[in-house]
């Protein structure tokens, strides 16, 4: 096994072009465990942790351009007000040691439907910037993952950055696992409220082949908020509406039975988490938190 350690983005892209089979390495949360268990034996690894350009975030077109190599500890410390949903999810990743090294770009690269950072990206309509020596393209996060651990990256491409709109309202995230730390989610749910646009965004994790949106739940809640004038009145949401939202979110999932949990449990827990995150987010919007 060979480990290439480019120190600039140009060098990294050139290395990927020259070694299309090479596996990119960021925090190592997933890849190093696979190497330790001998589940994977790549001939070449490209260690991206020395590429300074990947470790930066900036404001671009009124949104945030998050370099693929920014670690979770920094997302929590530096972006909690602009990307609150992603920051909440980041706090649940692994443990401090893992958050010190793990990155949102790495989570995307692994493309596990259970990746903690992915539901908030889906809920907020993130766009993923992919680059190769030949140029750059941007794809919506929902089109990025195509199957468990598979994505649209071409062999010569690397993930450059994640583009996200700055939050205009409350965002929430919830996940269920067997231990508070260091677990892969059994199921997770992210919610984004966008009051100026009168829109609701959702993201479902670990309950389908890829992170999913609960589109019907979004449309239902938008309908209730509009019809009852709740965006303006900031009035109370009925229990029935919260329950229906949970039910629709649950129905949007496509879970399987596996070692971490049954499909039935995942469906049930998603309904509970969707209702809970909505209650938290709506309380925050009403100013009662």
């Amino acid at each position, binding site marked *: *096994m060979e480990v290439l*350690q480019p120190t600039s983005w140009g060098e990294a892209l050139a290395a990927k072009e020259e070694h299309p089979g090479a596996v990119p390495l960021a925090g190592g949360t997933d890849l190093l465990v696979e190497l330790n268990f001998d589940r994977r034996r790549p001939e070449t690894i490209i260690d991206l942790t020395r590429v300074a350009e990947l470790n930066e975030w900036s404001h671009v077109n009124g949104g945030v351009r998050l370099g693929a190599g920014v670690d979770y500890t920094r997302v929590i410390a530096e972006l909690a007000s602009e990307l609150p949903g992603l920051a909440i999810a980041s706090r649940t990743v692994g443990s*401090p*040691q893992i958050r010190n*090294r793990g990155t949102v770009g790495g989570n995307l690269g692994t493309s596990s439907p259970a990746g903690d950072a992915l539901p908030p990206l889906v809920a907020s309509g993130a766009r993923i910037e992919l680059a190769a020596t030949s140029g750059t393209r941007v794809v919506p996060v929902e089109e990025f993952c195509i199957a468990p651990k598979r994505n649209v990256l071409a062999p010569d491409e690397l993930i450059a950055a994640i583009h996200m709109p700055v939050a205009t309202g409350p965002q929430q995230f919830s996940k269920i696992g067997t231990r508070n*730390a260091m677990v892969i989610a059994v199921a997770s749910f992210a919610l984004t409220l966008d009051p100026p646009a009168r829109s609701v965004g959702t993201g479902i994790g670990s309950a389908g082949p890829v992170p999913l949106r609960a589109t019907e739940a979004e449309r239902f809640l938008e309908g209730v908020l509009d019809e009852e004038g709740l965006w303006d009145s900031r009035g109370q949401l009925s229990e029935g509406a919260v329950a229906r939202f949970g039910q629709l979110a649950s129905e949007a999932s496509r879970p399987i039975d596996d070692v971490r949990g049954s499909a039935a449990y995942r469906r049930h827990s998603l309904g509970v988490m969707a209702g809970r995150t909505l209650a938290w987010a709506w309380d925050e919007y009403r100013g009662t938190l």
Partner: protein
Amino acid sequence: MRRISLTVNGVKHDAMVEPRQLLVYFLREQLALTGTNVGCDTSTCGACTILVNGKSAKSCTLLAVQADGAEVTTIEGLASNGEMHPLQKAFHESHGLQCGYCTPGMIMASVDLIANNDAMSDEDIRMGLEGNLCRCTGYQNIVKSVQQAAGEMRSPAST
């Protein structure tokens, strides 16, 4: 083989390593710093926690070549002039260990935790050490030890 150059506990080392070598095995087998334990190989247990450039990391999921140029601190680097570090002293005095296997990792994670947080509740400490497993103590005395050390480290005049 790859040549790497790194500083471990203040001492500069130049070494040849296989690219595949994990940092924890480099520390244990090439530098004979066996204080850092390997518990799980999957980053689940935290026994192998060290500091890389001042930040806690699990050395079982880091390649030695990734530490090229880095400042690494292991449990062996905490004591100075024969004096135990306040965390080592506190774990001893407050019975923060029983079998001791998790202790180096617990202490290294606590160094980062105390450095990055002001006054901590017991709950904060439990959250901060969420990536480290102990199968003996039930954690009560670990939390007590970290509280004791944090108090001592923040008011050095009183010690």
